[in-house]
């Protein structure tokens, strides 16, 4: 199991970016941040491929995938009481 994690770590998952401290009141938890570091690269790559694929499909006249569209714009607007 640990070997799989090490392999995942070796994936160029984490790009070097400096980030401002987002002074959130919520503790994100070290585990969840480590997880994002591990899976972020793969998830990001897959996201880029899907975006590219949907663009390609829309170029050939098929319905574009919803990756980049805004969802919920058509949501009803009945007001709260």
């Amino acid at each position, binding site marked *: 199991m640990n070997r799989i994690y090490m392999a995942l770590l070796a994936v160029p998952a984490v790009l070097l970016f400096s980030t401002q401290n987002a002074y959130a*009141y919520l503790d*994100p*938890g*070290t585990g*969840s941040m480590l997880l994002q570091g591990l899976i972020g690269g793969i998830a990001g790559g897959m996201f880029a491929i899907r975006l590219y694929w949907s663009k390609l499909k829309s170029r050939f006249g098929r319905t574009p995938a919803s990756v980049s569209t805004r969802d919920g714009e058509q949501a009803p607007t009945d007001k*709260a009481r």
Partner: protein
Amino acid sequence: MTAVEPGSFRDPSGQVFESDGRIFRTITARALADYTFVRDSGVLKRLIDSGRLVASEEVDPSILGNDARGAPIVVEHSRIPFVSYPYEWPFPALKAAALFHLDLQIDLLADGVMMSDASAYNVQFIGPRPVLIDLLSLRRYHEGEYWTGLRQFCEQFLNPLLLRAVLGVPHNQWYRGSLEGIPTAELNRLLPFHKKLSWQVMTYVVLQARLEASANDKGTADAGAIRKKGLTKASLLGILTQLRGWIAKLKPADTGKTVWGDYARNNTYTDAAEEAKCRFIAEFAQAVRPKLLWDLGCNSGNYSAVALGAGAGAAVGFDFDQKALELAFDRAVSEKLNLLPLFQDAANPSPDQGWQQAERRGIQGRRDADGLLALAFEHHLVIGRNVPLDQTIGWLTGLAPRGVIEFVPKDDPTVQRMLALREDIFDGYGVDAFTAALEARARIVRAESIADSGRRLFWYDRS
């Protein structure tokens, strides 16, 4: 009379107040920059116009007097018909709230806005439609930042959904005892090996639980280093869309036929009896026009739908049967009914709990219905749970000033089934005792026997 909403103490960005039935929120100096960014970029208005954020309007801060404590901005929110909690939501409601949260975050990133948390309690329902109630969780996105809310999202949305989707266990009872949600490490312990073989479960449950444990062992020295590395926006969007795709496919692992799921279709009524019952309820709803109707033992929402069609404004349904609640929720969505079906056991209803036992209110404290339906319900308390008939009627009539209660006699097949394996200790149970108990508390506007079933409907009014 102005009172602080006791559940709004966590985030120093502001606080919620209730004053004469109106809802206000302060925005403190520390949250001002983020608020004005979200407001001035037009995001706030767009979310309110599309019904995804509860309506909010800036008002003169002096309206709260000293309670505003110098907050530069105060907004007034419109009221939600009924405040509910994730431990009361049936599976499809929790799933709808989870997808709503993810869609909102994905959408907001295009405008450079990030949500500071992923609290399920910040989502409320108007009918079956989720709406965000906390505008202070919207703030400016900083390039490279991590998704602070991931752990909370997993504990409050994903893990409770997985509990039902993977193991077939409804989340409600555990969640009610564990207000922050289902801890990832505990879910990981419960999952059998073969359920861990899906790569999503492996990633978000097994791996996350391991990383949490190892981080705890090593201390948080690495935390600063991780934070410095940062996460690209594409990676963040990738994680969000991946989770969205997974959750959209989650379904309850079926637990077989449940008690009431088929009841609406295969009940013991004849069509004529059913028709008479619907007519009675429609006439009640037409005459009373309740703004908020409570439907106890709502099953799949049939009678709520009848009442809503006849003039009730909104309905909240309660039932303890998961399958019935799921049917009711799906029906409310597809038929666009202003109905919110919630999990509730009348013999053990949601208590006041959380910090100082005031953070999340019990069902009694949220009772503001002006109409009640309790159809084929009282015998479940009286016969099923041994609650004395008089107490049952007292409790029911206390919930709303007007309503319809159905009496189910002892020779009814459902009661006979309940008594099949036990001693009949209910000597005084009968329509006369029922009528006397009701008349002691309210005026009986109308009573009608339903065809030849022996059941009787009572329309009461104690106002």
